[in-house]
């Protein structure tokens, strides 16, 4: 596909962006199902199995239910849409209405720079190295960090505008937590940037041709993963919605689809962070035969994202929640020093290798 002018690029990005957003939103729906089913299996339960199944008659007159529950996300969506949309009287109207939207927008923004596949004929524009909504942003990593840092606003606004003590406690916890863990995340993201010598996500993926950065830098990968969990407010860092103490944290005063949007943002960000982890540490769209058949890149990305989601759900099922002071001291006294030291070691190593002092 030939794209030469800026307006053509804009149209291209618009179309691709629309499609990718649609894909990820569908992905969101099925991620919720994945989470419920997997959690259930990990706890020896069945999970949702009523809404939608393929009946297979058996000889005993009963029927086996195959793929039980695959319509559950649709049922959930219908339920959320038709619930009464209540607005508490004492809320701060403007910010209350804006908060869910502001939560979703950064999640969609990050999609723009993620490379989903390499150069695929017909769908990647000529002259671009990889398929993304906005390929070739040379400060992609910085863009991601910037947008991530904005995403805290949704939570804070929701918490404050609800005019409820549970909500505001959730909001305060969220802002402190996200600021604290952003530092560790930013520093570990710089490790792949230094290894690939570029802030362009596509270049980072191509830099993992020989070996995934996960194996070169397991510490960075681990720290990034933990910090990502904290940014996502996933278990064990989900104490801003800790249902036992805060009922539901910042979402407590929201109902109907407004609540659904927080839900949407959370799961979209799960998918996005798994994709980012794949890009930074798991070789992104790269895998066997991807040079011969570029379209395989989509499959590899999807596989890696799926793997990441499963691990996230597994962690949620296994680990208890942090206490607030533990969370803070872990972030500042453990993760941040580790990532700083790791960052410095990597920088020195790279210089030594380039100088020929150390050879690989």
């Amino acid at each position: 596909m030939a794209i030469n002018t800026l307006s053509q690029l804009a149209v291209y990005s618009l179309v691709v962006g629309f499609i990718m957003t649609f894909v990820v939103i569908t992905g969101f729906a099925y991620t919720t199902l994945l989470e419920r089913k997997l959690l259930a299996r990990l706890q020896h339960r069945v999970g949702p199995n009523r809404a939608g199944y393929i009946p297979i008659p058996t000889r005993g007159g009963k029927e086996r239910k195959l793929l039980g529950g695959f319509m559950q996300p649709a049922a959930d969506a219908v339920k959320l849409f038709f619930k009464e949309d209540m607005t508490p009287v004492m809320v701060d109207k403007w910010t209350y209405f804006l908060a869910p939207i502001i939560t979703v927008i950064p999640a969609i923004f990050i999609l723009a720079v993620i490379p989903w596949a390499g150069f695929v004929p017909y769908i990647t524009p000529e002259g671009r190295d990889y398929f993304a909504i906005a390929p070739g942003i040379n400060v992609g990593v910085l863009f991601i960090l910037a947008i991530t840092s904005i995403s805290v606003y949704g939570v804070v606004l929701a918490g404050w505008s609800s005019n409820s003590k549970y909500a505001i406690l959730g909001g305060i916890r969220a802002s402190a937590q996200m600021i604290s863990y952003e530092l560790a995340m930013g520093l570990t993201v710089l490790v792949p940037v230094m290894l690939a010598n570029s802030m362009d996500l596509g270049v980072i993926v191509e830099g993992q041709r020989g070996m995934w950065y996960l194996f070169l830098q397991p510490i960075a990968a681990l720290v990034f993963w933990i910090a990502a969990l904290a940014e996502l407010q996933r278990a064990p860092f989900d104490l801003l919605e800790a249902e036992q103490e805060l009922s539901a944290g910042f979402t407590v005063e929201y109902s109907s689809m407004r609540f659904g949007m927080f839900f949407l943002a959370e799961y979209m960000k799960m998918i996005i962070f798994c994709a980012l982890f794949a890009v930074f540490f798991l070789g992104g769209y790269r895998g066997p035969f991807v040079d011969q058949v570029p379209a395989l890149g989509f499959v590899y990305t999807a596989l890696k994202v799926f793997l990441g989601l499963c691990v996230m759900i597994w962690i949620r099922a296994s680990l208890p929640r942090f206490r607030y002071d533990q969370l803070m001291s872990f972030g500042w006294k453990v993760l941040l020093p580790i990532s700083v030291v790791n960052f410095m070691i990597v920088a020195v190593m790279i210089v030594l290798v380039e100088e020929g002092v150390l050879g690989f």
Partner: protein
Amino acid sequence: MTGEQFVFLAVSGLTIVAGILVVTLRNLFHAALAMMLSFLGVAGIYIMLGAGFLAAAQLLIYIGAISILIIFAIMLTRRMMQAQDTPFNSQAGAGLVTAVLSFILLVFVITRLWRNEIFDSPPEVPTAIMNQIVVQLGSDFVSPGAYVIPFIVASMLLLAALIGAVYVAWPQVEDEA
């Protein structure tokens, strides 16, 4: 009006209106949000000037860190909704006069130089530098043939500020007052 002019007017309009809201809104929390919007407008202006790195840094630091910190402080210290202080005091008039006079001064300065070559053409930057802007920036910060000494001094500044912040926040043991 070209598209660029339109975007410029929109972005700078956002910056200015949000800036005015910051100082006039009665609700402190809303004022902090307006300040965030104003920072966003500035980031937009950076993008228009072709300084993508600066724009991202602006988003990361001013919106992602400083504004959130301010909002965090407001949430911790104010009653939730009743922050309805008036933003004006007895010196509002004097402040307005000063602001208008400064504005007139700057307008005067800029219009006097309107036909100067400074405004006619932006300084040319070699494309080789533009393509490697982040790398160039990074190496300039630490190379002795560029900006290493301001970089070091800035880091000392941050260290001193950090020590000070810790000192001020540390619980006073022998509290005599």
